[in-house]
């Protein structure tokens, strides 16, 4: 490439383009190794057996009855989770956004809390309530009914816990759509002679439908790929889903990588298809109701029913909070007898996980290291990519978007398996670094999308004026754009930290002796320690996550008030 400066100091175009080509090539190379390679490895493993290309194994795998069962279970669990999360999420969102339900301001932030918590701990705590014989609800109701009514170790149990934990997704999407909807659209319906109910059914809901549907697909995809909850609640009752089956193929001796790869590919293609459907839905029906202005739509007067609304919302929160309180009680007892006894009150379980149990201590330390370093690296990578995507005119940027967003469609267990296949014979395998890398890649879409919207909110003229003041592109970014997005980046860092602390699926595929993460340690402890000990560990993780939630809220409200000033 010719580098020539004219007498007047002009730089020829090739050099200008040259920098960009190197940057783009580096990004593509990085994404190829971290995103494409693991997924390609899974697909490759699925169709290539020892003797070459073969579909015989695929046929064999899919004719196994256990896989048919697991597929049915996966679809049923996901569908039930969507029904529960969808009805709860839409109802609560409508109550908060459009009704005069009392205590809305209190309910709104609380409704989002399950979003940040670990569903594995949720599953653990629901065991305390609804395990077949020992669950509190069963021990109370059995004398009355003559039988134990609840069995959390079932398709219903798994779907129930997932539905509770994914209701905030639907809630968030629907709330956003309802709050950004121009009130005039509904008022126009009323002025055209429609009743309140007709307005809700004919105008409000259709306008929110893309958001609700899209959230439901997201819940379906996530439920289909989820690993931790089916592992905790399904395995004891011999209820397998595709994800737990994939894990079994690898964890049980002799491991069958080919079968795991075939199932992973099937699961991956399924989630890709659904995600594509979700994107098509959002693209096809982008109504111009979202203006970014904070409309205050008029609320519907529910009369006395507003207390029913508050009751519904409180009930949802109880379903989330009560099991955790039960878990807290369990963790404070030296042995769990099915009910709380003051005589058995102890902190020994906390002492055990914090100071004695090697796996627990290591899990906590490992997760803190991975999450702190990983979130920092993820934020840095997201910021760099966002700046390249939003603030340069480099060629082939759309490809970067697609590749970076691809992991959003990949269930953690599949991504973890891909990393296992791709990196098992490298020195990275068996280190915290590989687990961290898998986390970063899996949540790159989250980091990038959030960072991009922060960067988009900064007017281009702000960095263009820096360029006109003599700053290079890099100087304009570091001295103008980065300082302006920094406060928002802290929130993204915390969100990723929370996500990494509770991660289960990829860790399960990649951990080795010594690199257990917090969630892995929790699952291990559940196998060999009494209930109280795993309860204590679960409570500790929940407190850590709640602390982060409080910080996130604190930061975002501080940012909003400083913007208002």
């Amino acid at each position, binding site marked *: 490439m010719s580098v020539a400066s004219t007498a007047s100091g002009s730089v020829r175009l090739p050099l200008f383009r040259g920098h960009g080509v190197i940057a783009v090539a580096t990004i593509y190379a990085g994404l190829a190794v971290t995103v494409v390679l693991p997924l390609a490895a899974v697909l490759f493993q699925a169709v290539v057996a020892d003797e070459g290309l073969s579909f015989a194994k695929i046929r064999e795998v899919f004719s196994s009855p256990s896989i048919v069962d697991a597929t049915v279970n996966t679809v049923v669990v996901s569908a039930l989770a969507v029904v529960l999360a969808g009805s709860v999420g839409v109802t609560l969102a409508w109550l908060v956004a459009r009704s005069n339900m009392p205590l809305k301001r209190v309910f709104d932030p609380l409704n989002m809390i399950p979003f940040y918590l670990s569903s594995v701990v949720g599953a653990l705590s629901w065991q305390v309530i609804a395990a077949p014989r020992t669950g509190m609800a069963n021990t109370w109701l059995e004398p009355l009914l003559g039988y134990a009514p609840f069995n959390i170790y079932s398709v219903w149990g798994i779907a129930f816990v997932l539905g509770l934990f994914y209701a905030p997704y639907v809630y968030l999407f629907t709330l956003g759509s309802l709050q950004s909807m121009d009130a005039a659209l509904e008022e126009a319906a009323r002025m055209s002679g429609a009743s309140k109910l007709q307005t809700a059914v004919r105008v409000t809901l259709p306008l929110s439908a893309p958001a609700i549907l899209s959230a439901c697909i997201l819940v379906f995809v996530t439920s289909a790929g989820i690993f931790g909850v089916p592992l905790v609640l399904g395995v004891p009752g011999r209820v397998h889903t595709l994800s737990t089956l994939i894990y079994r193929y690898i964890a049980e001796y002799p491991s069958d990588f080919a079968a795991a790869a075939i199932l992973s590919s099937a699961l991956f293609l399924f989630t890709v298809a659904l995600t594509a459907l979700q994107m098509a839905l959002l693209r096809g029906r982008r109504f111009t109701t979202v203006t970014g202005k904070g409309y205050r739509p008029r609320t519907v007067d529910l009369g006395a029913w507003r207390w029913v609304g508050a009751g519904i919302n409180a009930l949802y929160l109880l379903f989330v909070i009560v099991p955790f309180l039960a878990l807290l009680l369990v963790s404070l007892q030296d042995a769990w007898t099915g009910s709380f006894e003051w005589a058995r009150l102890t902190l020994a379980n906390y002492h055990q996980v914090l100071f004695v149990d090697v796996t627990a201590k290591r899990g906590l330390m490992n997760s803190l290291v991975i999450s702190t370093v990983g979130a920092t690296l993820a934020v840095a990578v997201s910021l760099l990519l966002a700046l390249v995507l939003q603030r340069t005119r480099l060629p082939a940027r759309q490809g970067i978007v697609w590749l970076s967003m691809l992991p959003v469609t990949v269930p953690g267990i599949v991504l973890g398996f891909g990393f296992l296949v791709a990196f098992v014979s490298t020195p990275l395998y068996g280190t915290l670094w590989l687990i961290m890398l898998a986390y970063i890649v899996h949540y790159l879409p989250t980091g990038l999308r959030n960072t991009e919207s922060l960067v988009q909110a900064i007017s281009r003229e702000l960095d263009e004026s820096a360029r006109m003041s003599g700053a290079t592109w890099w100087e*304009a970014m570091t001295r103008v754009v980065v300082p302006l997005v920094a406060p928002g980046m802290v929130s993204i860092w915390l969100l990723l930290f929370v996500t990494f602390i509770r991660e289960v699926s990829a860790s399960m595929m990649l951990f080795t002796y010594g690199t257990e993460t917090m969630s892995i340690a929790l699952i291990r402890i559940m196998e060999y320690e009494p209930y109280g000990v795993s309860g204590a560990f679960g409570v500790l993780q929940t407190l850590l996550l709640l602390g982060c939630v409080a910080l996130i809220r604190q930061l975002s409200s501080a940012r909003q008030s400083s913007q208002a000033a």
Partner: protein
Amino acid sequence: MPVHVRGLAKTYGAVRAVQGVDFTVAPGTTVTLLGPSGCGKTTTLRCIAGLEVPTAGRITVGDRVVYDDAEGIFVEPERRNIGMVFQSYAIWPHMTVGGNVGFPLKISGRPKAEVEERTRAILQLVGLGDLHDRPAAALSGGQQQRVALARALVHEPQVVLFDEPLSNLDANLRERMRTELQLLQARLGFTAIFVTHDQQEALSLSDRIIVMNRGRLEQEGTPQDVFQNPATAFTARFLGYANVFAGEVADIADAGKVRIDLGDGVLLAARWRASEPARKGERGTIAFRADRVAVEPRGTVPPGDNVIAGDIEAAAFLGTFIDYTIHAGPLQIKAEGPVDKPFVRGDAVQIRISPAQCHAFRAADAA
């Protein structure tokens, strides 16, 4: 320092935002790119700034080539030494006023003392001497404008670009800034290129005006020339010519004088403004200003050239004049009349327009 733009073109995919624009800005003068939104004026300005990479053409600032597609030259914006005031002012909210204004000096590695001294001096000059340490986020619109101006001028660029700098100010403030800008330019001697869609702003600020339309240069000249002698129907309409009518060339007199047949026997004499001579029977467009139309009671002057009978259809009192809509044969003519002799709706009038005030264009020009 002069600025030369030759054959400038910029396309975005299939959209041709600028297609072959040529102009020269003489040192120390002010040129305004005027046109409606989407005419390519801002793209042209941003190409000069280096914020857009043109598709073709050549741009020189002084004797330095900053862009040339044939030679493969593109100078990054930070190396062009051009100042720019943005439409949104683009004040960095995380810095103080001094931090904003001193940034160009700091980034070029000037010693701290010099940065401080020159920053304070330029702030004094734009009338913000006491705001040096104020956080920039706490400024009013007018103050932000001055900070943006100070920042664009502090490193003493020979060329300063202004992207609709006055459009976000209220009317009074705009008036004052306009004057101050002219005083500053006289004092510092920079070459200024403005972009605006506001004809008043263009007329009052500029030494020369360049009217742009659909990515092309429509007309270039002094404000008086462009205003009084629009070269195309587009320019006429854009500069507020309220009466623009389509017709046919009826006959051609000498020295570029024509008569345009507007239908129903209404003929208006006008000056032929197209470069090629008119042909009898071809389609043409005629334009004249509302304030050049004399409105009189019917019968006061004998019918003759450019006198048309009509009826007052609407009259609106606008303070210094009355705005009339007059129904005259096939035409609906806008006119302005004095407030002391008002007509009312339904009055029979006749209107008179001097042929020198009527501009006729080839119909293909009527964009």
